[in-house]
């Protein structure tokens, strides 16, 4: 058996040892070293906890009948659809600026790119908060149709992955692939949320405010 993956010291490869470590290649992968995977434990467990809390609240909470609405829109569904659309556009800025910072786009990464990345990310997640509060409060975690189930799961995944990313960022001891992978999960989950709600609304009810 050829096994070239870096393994944490103290866990020798054996034939019945399942390949649980991430399979590369990842940019900037360094040998995690001792304590690297435990270093991920806090962010990952924090994210898991938030995702589970959101899902359980959405399932157990008796759906409300009224929520604060925003003037100028035809209804809460469209407020949410447009807020999610704004978040997805900001997330594209996130993706491009991250690719630049990791040297995948362009030859250099000016310092303003990381500022742009930080603030577009903050704004993106902030505009999703009214949406998720409405979703959780009025609808909860639903599984009536595949679309609703995927949307509910993606919502929990999005905030769980976001929490994991925020908890990982200040840590210097996490593996190099952590931020790209977790950021990719956040981005993918947000796109899934947009596809299963905003795009669905726009195609079934028309594109308007």
């Amino acid at each position, binding site marked *: 058996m050829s096994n070239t993956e870096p393994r944490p010291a103290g866990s020798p490869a054996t034939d019945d040892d399942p390949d649980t470590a991430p399979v590369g290649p990842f940019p900037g992968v360094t040998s995690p070293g001792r304590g690297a995977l435990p270093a991920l434990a806090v962010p990952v467990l924090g994210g898991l906890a938030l995702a589970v809390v959101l899902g359980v609240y959405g399932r157990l909470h*008796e*759906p*409300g*009948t*009224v*929520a*604060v609405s925003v003037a100028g829109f*035809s*209804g*809460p*569904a469209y407020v*949410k659809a447009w807020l999610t659309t704004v978040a997805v556009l900001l997330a594209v800025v996130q993706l491009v600026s991250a690719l630049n910072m990791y040297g995948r786009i362009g030859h250099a990464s000016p310092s303003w790119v990381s500022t742009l990345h*930080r603030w577009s*990310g*903050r704004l993106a*997640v*902030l505009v999703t*908060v*009214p949406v*998720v*509060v*409405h979703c*959780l*409060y*009025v*609808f909860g975690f*639903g599984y*009536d*149709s595949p679309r*609703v189930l995927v949307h509910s799961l993606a919502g929990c995944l999005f905030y769980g992955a*976001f*929490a994991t*990313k*925020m*908890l990982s*960022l*200040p840590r210097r001891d996490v593996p190099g692939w952590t931020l790209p992978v977790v950021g990719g999960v956040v981005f993918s989950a947000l796109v899934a949320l947009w596809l299963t*709600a905003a795009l*669905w*609304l726009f195609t*079934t*009810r028309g594109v308007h405010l």
Partner: protein
Amino acid sequence: MLRTPYLTLAAVVVLGLVLLAVDMAVQPPASAPPAAAPPPAEAAATAPAAATPPTTAPAATTFPPRVRYVGDVVSDGSTIPVAVTVDGDHAKAYVCDGHHVEAWLQGPAGAGVLDATGRNGNHLTGHLEGDRLTGTVHLAGRADAPFTASPTTDARSGVYRQSGSGRTTGWIVRGDAGQVGLSHDGSGAVTPPPPLPVAGPLPAGVVPVDGTTDVLAAS
């Protein structure tokens, strides 16, 4: 600098909790316990009901045992169909324009007067004038609007409802004047439902609303 992601996470959590608290604060208390709300409303509504008929409805002071009214609400210069079923001392009402306005209401009826409440503070009061039902509808976010509805003898006219697996659908069948309906699947969006057949058996799960139908039940 090192700690700003924690601040971002905290800000998101705090904003979420604040919005949740606001939503909880504006929740009308009447709709919180749907089963417990009607009895006090009934007690409150029947007391004035006993006193008002002599002045408001001199001709007919009592509802027939089972009657369906179909008519229109005049709201902001347009008309919105409304249908009311009075079954014994229960009134059930459905206001629906077939596009984006709908409201389910229910409450006590007696002595020619009915008082039905719905979600979001929606409220409908009506009294008999001759054999017609007339009154006022308050829909959340709209000005109070008058309505008039006539009793129907057409077998299919009235309010129909289908509720289950997260989807609630309502229809007002208006005899020769057609029908309107709205359906929502719990996502916040509403769609027009397939029309009901004008005769013959109803589709599975569709029931004519009567005094036993809980029109405010969550599906």
